[in-house]
């Protein structure tokens, strides 16, 4: 049992924190995105120079062969800074899909560009009628094989950064027989292909999610990612990792809420004394801090297991369930202590309030993961 970071991990954490603190465009992109891309591509390339996009990819593909645990440490800082970027979409959802399921040829084709930040991937998974990304029976976008080419039709929702992505990992139904998780095939598609259109979704988190329409999009057989009709197992693995990656971002955000809230409580004077001398508000701060430490410990345990290649759906569900509840609660307490000033659109507290709800609903909220846990224990 050792809960400390290695020297390298401490260094990664510190340098990420320092970099994001000094970088003015991080702050620029808080609140409503300022340009049509919705993020700073200049910052994106600086991140690539630091090696962030390549952190968990093998050196063969231009990466740094870091562990998943290293990635989680970086993601905490990304969450702390409220960084708006395609990192989660391109690296976690898209990049890990290719790494997990791609053929050697596919990995060589896409990953070196992904790890350099030169190309953006994303995952097109959720569809209308689902409450959770990981429900295979809701995959209805059709992929029909005609004369050696797959024709894709349907609508994908909540696709992050699709508007700027170069490639989509698109999860489709290619066969209707058998269990819901059979007959699913993932394709890696050039977004410039004819028939793809992209409409931004107005979401509470202001986090660049899109609707992607596919109309008779033609994809070659070579673009199948993972096996034909056998895409679901790798998607499930990627979702496990993505869930813990998201928890790490949430923990970082909670850390930031805690810091700005405690700081505000210490300095804001009302009734002739600092509001932080009020026991009720002190307890709000204590609650944020306590729940955060539990969340962090649960996330790290799951991340450690994933790093070791241990399949750990129970730990993943426990961590996401805890993080969902505690981040939302932290955003409530933070809003209460900041009061009016926190509700301003250009105050980060208001963005945390939005993002906490978004993160809670993404990749399964507490109730959803509790049902998964119950199924493991009771069925």
């Amino acid at each position: 049992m050792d809960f400390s970071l290695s020297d390298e991990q401490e260094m990664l954490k510190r340098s990420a924190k320092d970099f994001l603190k000094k970088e003015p465009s991080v702050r620029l992109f808080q609140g409503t995105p300022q340009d049509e891309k919705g993020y700073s591509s200049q910052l994106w390339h600086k991140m690539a120079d630091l090696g962030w996009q390549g952190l968990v990819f093998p050196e063969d593909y231009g990466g740094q062969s870091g562990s998943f645990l290293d990635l989680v440490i970086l993601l905490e800082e990304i969450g702390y800074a409220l960084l708006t970027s395609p990192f989660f979409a391109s690296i976690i959802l898209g990049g890990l899909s290719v790494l997990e399921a791609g053929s050697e040829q596919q990995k060589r084709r896409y990953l070196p560009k992904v790890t350099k930040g030169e190309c953006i991937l994303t995952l097109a998974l959720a569809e209308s009628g689902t409450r959770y990304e990981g429900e295979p029976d809701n995959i209805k976008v059709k992929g029909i094989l005609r004369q050696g080419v797959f024709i894709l039709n349907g609508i994908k929702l909540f696709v992050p950064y699709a508007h700027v992505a170069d490639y989509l990992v698109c999860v489709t139904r290619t066969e209707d027989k058998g269990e819901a998780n059979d007959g699913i095939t993932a394709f890696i598609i050039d977004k410039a292909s004819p028939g793809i259109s992209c409409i931004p979704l107005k979401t509470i988190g202001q986090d660049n999610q899109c609707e992607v329409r596919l109309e008779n999009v033609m994809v070659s057989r070579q673009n199948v990612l993972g096996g034909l009709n056998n895409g679901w197992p790798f998607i499930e693995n990627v979702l496990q990792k993505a869930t813990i990656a998201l928890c790490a971002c949430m923990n970082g955000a909670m850390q930031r809420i805690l810091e700005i809230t405690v700081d505000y409580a210490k300095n804001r004077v009302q009734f002739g004394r600092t509001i932080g001398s009020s026991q009720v508000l002190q307890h709000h701060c204590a609650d944020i801090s306590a729940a955060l430490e539990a969340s962090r410990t649960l996330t790290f345990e799951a991340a450690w297991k994933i790093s070791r290649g241990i399949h750990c759906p129970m730990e993943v569900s426990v961590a996401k369930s805890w993080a969902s509840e505690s981040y939302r609660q932290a955003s409530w307490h933070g809003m209460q202590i900041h009061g009016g000033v926190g509700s301003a659109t250009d105050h980060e507290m208001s963005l945390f309030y939005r993002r906490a709800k978004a993160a809670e609903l993404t990749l399964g909220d507490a109730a959803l993961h509790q049902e998964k846990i119950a199924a493991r224990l009771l069925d």
Partner: protein
Amino acid sequence: MEFEFTKEQQDFRQEVRNFFRKVPWIEIRRENKPFDLLSFYKEVTAKGWTGLLAPKEYGGQRKDAIYETIFAEEISYSEAPPDVILYFSMIEYCTNLVLRCATENQKKEYLPRVIRGELRATQMYTEPDSGSDLASVKTNAVRKGDYYIINGQKMFTSNIDSPYSILMARTDPYAPPEKGISLFILDNNAPGISYTFLKNICEIETTQVFLEDVKIHKENLIGEENKGWDYFLRTKDCYWHKARVWTYVNWQKMFDAIVQYVKNTRANGRLLSKNPAVRQQIAEMIIDLKALRLLIYRLSFMRSAGLDTLGFAAILKIIGDDAFLRLANNAMQILGLFGQLGGGTSYTPLSGMMEAMYRAAAIYHYVDSGGAVKAKDFLATYGLGLPELSRGDA
């Protein structure tokens, strides 16, 4: 980062487990089977397990808080009765107190006695008018020659039959409250001590203690005079830590029983395990248990790494006390109408353990160390640097 135990720790766990589980505790408890506890304790001491934390020069093993936690977990899993658990828990409490607060001479003198199990102490801290505001204690200790003369009253002292108490008393009535307190080792059989029993919601006998001109030799002042409040704070993390280990293990055992219960019990034509509300309650319980165990070991790790653990111990108390209350509440609701039955009736589910644990949860959440709210005060001020609650003049 490493979430596995070392080979040495795993071997240690196995050895303790085997040793404690070979004793037929259940028969001893249920059938009053004669058992020589004293020689059992001697065997444990001979194995070095009562000196896990103490350095070698004082007769200890110089292991760390992770070993201490493994030991505590395994005793709890073994079905050993509460007085056995208490015996070892008092040894740990005294070890930490002496190690962190006593003078060098006292360490040399006391630690070997603590390790042998002779110097076991309960706490005499709380008073009728000093509960959550413990620093306001009024029991006074006046120095006369080589002795301190003690006068005052203590409340809720449990285990009065243990050989010693750690007494908190005021040695400087003119200093600010936190600066005039000292801690003493008090022989519980000293003349001038009397007590009456108070039964609490857990049906545990605690006592109200009256101290009238009780003499304590000056050598039994722990550390230095007027530093008692600081010493009390310095050992709070161990106390908060250990209490949660025992209860966590109890809950883990009971949780397994509840899972079996909901899988095998039908209500309204279906298994409880198919009832969505029950499923959610069960999931909430395992989430709490998993969080709690990790926090327990994280605190063990921090203690063994020599980090400041007071703030984190408050976090463990806050999360733990919430968890204990929620666990007990969920368990009672799962049992429904029958949840209210105590042990001993033929209708009682799960031996009435849930009914007892629901009562015990009140002690943790609302009473112990001023309850979870007091730990939140502490975390907010000590841990997060918010202003301390100022003392009024009522």
